């Protein structure tokens, strides 16, 4: 394994737990501890914790921070007040998605953006290049660690009070200070705990001591796929627009931001293709890059631990995007049937 891979502050703890470590976006990250499927089920039925400290944190501050971000991010920042966060997109002139991220409004004139590890440098360079007087953009990723605690029992096991989705507050977990944001990437209730890098070990230990199961990036991927949450680099990219990807809800088309003209045009004319979710009706596991008959391609595919079938997402011509449409996927030369389903693919009852 390359010596140049980065390690989170929890690296030694992952080793101690017997994690299988793999390279991911330049980081050496746990893909699983005891097994992807049992970790996945722990999050769906109880509570699990993921080290996502590889994700980037970019702070934007200053009297014109709001104005800068309003012009660069797709969602409307007037919708959130200090103490609230928002899922939003960083878009290019063509209306393509440079990254999807969560914007925390820390103070009226101070934001923290939590971005994908693989796009940290690109995002920072883009923001820095567009900086205006009265706004200061800083990459503060190395100062922080991030733990995602997810599952129906996550909040109760952490001893936190119920709070609205996308709100955040300072909390203490067994004496360790963190910021808890009610969000996640699994389709379950839970939060993401942002703490100082030097506190990561103590926070991790406190979370595990509360009988929360350590989970790797393998389960994170199957969970987000069942929930139909897009993965940047797979399902969305600088070459895909938000409307085709089903992310129109993140785009405030009544304000001006980079690429809005093109996004408005796609919205008005209707996209030529759409990102759909599908479930295999024949035994097979779809994988990224497999062709879909009639024009289209699988962008994410795996096995659903909850449904015990192959599932995926992919772009298909809009005429073939309606639920119940039968798709034929080329699984290494063998045609295998799938059925378009309404998103999400899996949602827990109740």
């Amino acid at each position, binding site marked *: 394994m390359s010596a140049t891979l980065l390690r989170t502050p929890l690296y030694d703890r992952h080793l101690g737990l017997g994690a*299988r470590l793999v390279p991911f976006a330049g980081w050496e990250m746990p*893909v*699983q501890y005891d*097994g*992807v*499927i049992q970790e996945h089920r722990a999050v769906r039925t109880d509570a699990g914790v993921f080290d996502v400290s590889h994700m980037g944190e970019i702070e934007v501050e200053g009297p014109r921070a709001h104005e800068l971000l309003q012009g660069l991010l797709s969602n409307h920042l007037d919708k959130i007040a200090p103490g609230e966060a928002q899922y939003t997109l960083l878009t290019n002139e063509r209306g393509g998605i440079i990254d999807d991220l969560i914007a925390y409004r820390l103070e009226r004139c101070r934001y923290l953006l939590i971005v994908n590890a693989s796009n940290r440098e690109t995002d920072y360079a883009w923001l820095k290049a567009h900086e205006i007087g009265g706004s200061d953009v800083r990459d503060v990723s190395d100062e922080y660690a991030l733990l995602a605690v997810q599952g129906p029992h996550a909040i109760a096991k952490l001893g936190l009070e119920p709070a609205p989705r996308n709100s955040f507050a300072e909390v203490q977990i067994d004496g360790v200070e963190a910021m808890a944001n009610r969000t996640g990437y699994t389709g379950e209730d839970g939060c993401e705990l942002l703490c100082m890098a030097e506190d990561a070990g103590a926070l991790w230990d406190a979370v595990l001591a509360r009988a929360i199961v350590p989970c790797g990036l*393998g389960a994170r*991927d*199957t969970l987000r796929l069942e929930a139909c949450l897009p993965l940047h680099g797979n399902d969305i990219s600088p070459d895909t627009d938000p409307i085709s990807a089903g992310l129109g809800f993140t785009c405030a088309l009544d304000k001006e931001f980079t690429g809005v003209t093109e996004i408005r045009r796609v919205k008005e004319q209707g996209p030529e293709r759409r990102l759909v979710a599908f479930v295999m009706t024949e*035994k*097979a*596991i779809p*994988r990224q890059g497999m062709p879909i008959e009639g024009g289209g391609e699988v962008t994410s595919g*795996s*096995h659903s*631990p909850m449904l015990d079938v*192959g599932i995926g997402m992919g772009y298909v011509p809009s005429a073939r995007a309606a639920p119940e449409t039968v798709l034929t996927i080329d699984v*290494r030369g063998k045609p295998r049937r799938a059925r378009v389903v309404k998103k999400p693919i899996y949602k827990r009852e109740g």
Partner: protein
Amino acid sequence: MAAADSYPDDLKYHPEHDWARIEGDEAVLGITWFAQDALGELVHFEAPTQGSHTKKDSTYGEVESVKAVSDVIAPLSGEVLEVNQAVVDAPETVNEDPYGAGWLVRIRLEDPSEVDTLLDAEAYKQLLAEQ
């Protein structure tokens, strides 16, 4: 999952991490403990059809975990007499018992002399140690 690694002495091994149990002019084939551990929990076995033929050193099926797909290499040439339906229905059987309930196919040998080219347990363990 079968917790500890094991390589029974009564089996023959192929360097691509497959095993064969010779039973007269037939053989039962599967993947080794090492192979299933490297893949993780299996979720799919793309099996050959009954009556098709395996060719030594060539792919006769695929096994998939959540994250990966792997070809299954035939240690011996033969006609497929039986596919283990229990593994098709519940692929994790391979993780639980790779040499027992987790066998993949039974074949009729087409060239019994091929058996001599396979590794015994000691030689296979040596190969793993060198990797």
